[in-house]
């Protein structure tokens, strides 16, 4: 779908966020970008979204996959909803910005809210929603324009453990159902192991790809407790031990 060729990013204050990242991404993959805080994983996501330009290297898109407005759905760490708009209006926003009328968009908005289980909360404003529900609205907003690529920047980091598990289950199911390509940034080994079918482990700053894992954990209700899952967590932990600098 697209590939990164020795992509590097240095900020004007001389911080090297990324140093020569090379990797290819296939359609339908659920890729977790896993790494410690400050390793440049969010920067990588912003480069993919076109919100920033790489300082060196390039991102090559397949001819058919070159993204235009609305082709990339982005879910931020916070839900970042418009506080004055209802859940439905927040989900409608990306379509509105591209000139779709409310009537035209209504079926898409309804479908997106249904996908995240919020059909009954369409007319509620963010203040009336829980943290988990707000994040669901944010995901529905990213899905409403049926993007070919969904980028998620630690979307569940601020949620409590129970809500996080539920949203992880739902996101994984949604990916299996829709076959969307997802790039998901996280610093949680468990989250990456549970969600993704490919894990890029990034080393601490400046970020480089330290490992490219393609786990095959059996699907089903016991995914979190399967032997393959615990083996994968152990493997990622070992990888981190290798690449993390020694601490006292």
């Amino acid at each position, binding site marked *: 779908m697209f590939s990164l060729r020795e992509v590097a990013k240095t900020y004007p204050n001389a911080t090297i966020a990324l140093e020569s990242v090379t990797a290819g991404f296939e359609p339908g993959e659920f890729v977790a970008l896993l790494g410690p805080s400050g390793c440049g994983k969010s920067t990588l996501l912003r480069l993919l979204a076109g919100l920033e330009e790489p300082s060196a290297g390039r991102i090559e898109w397949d001819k058919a996959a070159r993204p235009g407005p609305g082709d990339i759905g982005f879910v931020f760490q916070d839900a*970042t909803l418009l506080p004055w708009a209802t859940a439905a209006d927040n989900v409608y926003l990306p379509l509105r*910005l591209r000139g779709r009328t409310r009537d035209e968009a209504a079926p898409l908005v309804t479908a997106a809210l249904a996908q995240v289980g919020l059909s009954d909360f369409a007319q509620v404003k963010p203040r009336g929603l829980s943290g988990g529900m707000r994040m669901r609205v944010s995901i529905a907003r990213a899905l409403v324009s049926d993007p070919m690529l969904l980028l998620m920047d630690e979307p569940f980091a601020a949620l409590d453990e129970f809500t996080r598990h539920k949203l992880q289950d739902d996101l994984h199911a949604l990916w299996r159902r829709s076959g969307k390509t997802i790039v998901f940034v996280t610093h949680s080994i468990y989250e990456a192991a549970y969600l993704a079918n490919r894990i890029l482990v990034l080393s601490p700053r400046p970020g480089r790809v330290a490992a490219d894992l393609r786990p095959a954990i059996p699907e089903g209700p016991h995914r979190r407790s399967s032997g393959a899952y615990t083996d994968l967590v152990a493997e990622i932990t070992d990888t981190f031990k290798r690449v993390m600098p020694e601490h006292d």
Partner: protein
Amino acid sequence: MTKTIERIAPFAFGLAALGFWQGLVWALGVPSYVLPGPIAIIQAYLDDHAVLDSALLSTLSVTVAALLGATIIGVALAVAMAASRLFRAAIQPWAVILQVTPVVAIAPFIIIWVNQPFLALVVCAVIVAFFPILSSTAAGLAATPPELQDLFRLNGATRWQTLILLSLPSALPSFLTGLRVSGTLALVGAVVAEFVAGSGGFASGLAYRIIEASYRLEIPRMFAALVLLGLSGIVIYTALGWLEAVLLHRRDGA
């Protein structure tokens, strides 16, 4: 219980202070041309309320017009400053200079340059009042959440769409805070302008009545006009605070 006491506390304090004041005036036999007691002030208002009420209306009309002008100018400048860094760099120091220059110093020029007395007073009051709206709206626009700006960019939003659908609504709470400060400043500006203009101005506002009463040594009447000004300030501040609460509740309420 504590809430009720807190609510009536300002009124109780006011009444006690007025009682003390009246008692002092009586006890010491202070003549009313030095310091009139509250009863004499109320009496002066009742004797002359037709003139004082119309003076109040005149000052308030200048205040409201100035607040409208300050809102339009303040918001327009804030939007332009948010849109263009060059414009911000060019304008900001001049806005500060205008703000720190005492309006008493420039009012005489404005009264000479602007022929129409009402407009001259409004211009003076706008100069006093526009800065809080400008600075707080500009701060509100600058604080638009960057993630939402990114979201708008990702969806190919135009600058106009970003302004109307995101930046202005985001800046609403800051704007309303600035508006509340500007409301009372517009009243101050209107009064200062009337003072400077004197009989050359509109010749009917509360400040003009205060000057007139002081020339005639009608001190209770002067105090009555002063009290009307104070009350107007409280009403403006409270009304704008109420507007802020209602608008924000309607905007964000679940």
